[in-house]
């Protein structure tokens, strides 16, 4: 079901459409690292022997690193889509569905709302 494509710059281009969640997690991780600069986390990282790659991961953010990896595709017969694009499409469908079913604040159907 899951098929990994050959790494190209095209995959990197697609990876820019990575989900918003990755950015949130990335920023959260950066925030944790910043908060830990004067605490236990800083001590841990100062004592730990860090390789260049690990230092890069910490500095740039773990999720930024994953965003630059090759794209992962779902391939079913004639249909093929990258996971990132699939997440965006499903998010839009979820947003559309929620907008239809969630009650609107202050909306009184019996009273007919405004006007």
């Amino acid at each position: 079901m899951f098929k990994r494509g050959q790494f190209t710059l095209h995959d990197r281009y697609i990876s820019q459409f990575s989900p918003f969640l990755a950015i949130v997690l990335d920023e959260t991780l950066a925030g944790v690292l910043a908060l830990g600069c004067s605490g236990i986390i800083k001590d841990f990282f100062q004592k730990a022997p860090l390789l260049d790659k690990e230092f890069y991961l910490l500095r740039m953010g773990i999720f930024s690193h994953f965003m630059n990896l090759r794209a992962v595709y779902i391939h079913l017969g004639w249909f093929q889509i990258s996971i990132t694009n699939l997440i965006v499409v499903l998010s839009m469908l979820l947003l559309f569905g929620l907008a239809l079913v969630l009650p609107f604040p202050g909306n009184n159907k019996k009273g007919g709302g405004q006007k």
Partner: protein
Amino acid sequence: MSTDVEKEMWTSKLRKSWQKNLPVEKLLPDTQPAYVASWIYLFGVATLAALALIIASGLVLSFEGASWYHFSRVGHFVNSMHFWSVQFFFIFMVVHLWGKFWMAAWRGRRLLTWITGALAFVGSIATAFTGYLIQTNFDSQWISYEAKDGFNSVGIGSRFNVTNFGQMILLHVAFLPVIIGVITIIHVLLVRAKGVVPPIDAFNKELGERK
């Protein structure tokens, strides 16, 4: 005599047409029909909000330049804000499109509203595409060299040369934003003039007719 002359003037005709079709009460309303109290009606204005962020962040990027947004922390932030504003702009616009499609929003003499919305969508895709071409990185290089084959295959490569950075950046920061801006303003004015389209069942119930 002067009244007859005044009637002939295009300024007079335009003023009277504007006052008839879009009085200030319609342009800046303080109430909306009851059916507008739904989340699905908010995605149009959410798209406008994202567009405002795109324009604001794009202006900053234009003034500061590529060497700033590639190499400074604030530049990275504004660059990312521009990118993610575009993502949410398209997400909101597509949900807005779905909502309007399924409620047949071209009803009630709103066809021009629908058409201007479609034009804004197509124009936005072109603007986003030229944005990818002027990132000044390997992505833009790769995209332009792949896209040129596509444009050449349909015979428009000489007029729309995606590898011409000067042409693409002027299209992205000058021509296309003006087009999108004008279409968006016309679209919003038409929505105000014709009113927000009602749901299909509410339309029949409240007005007793189908158009």
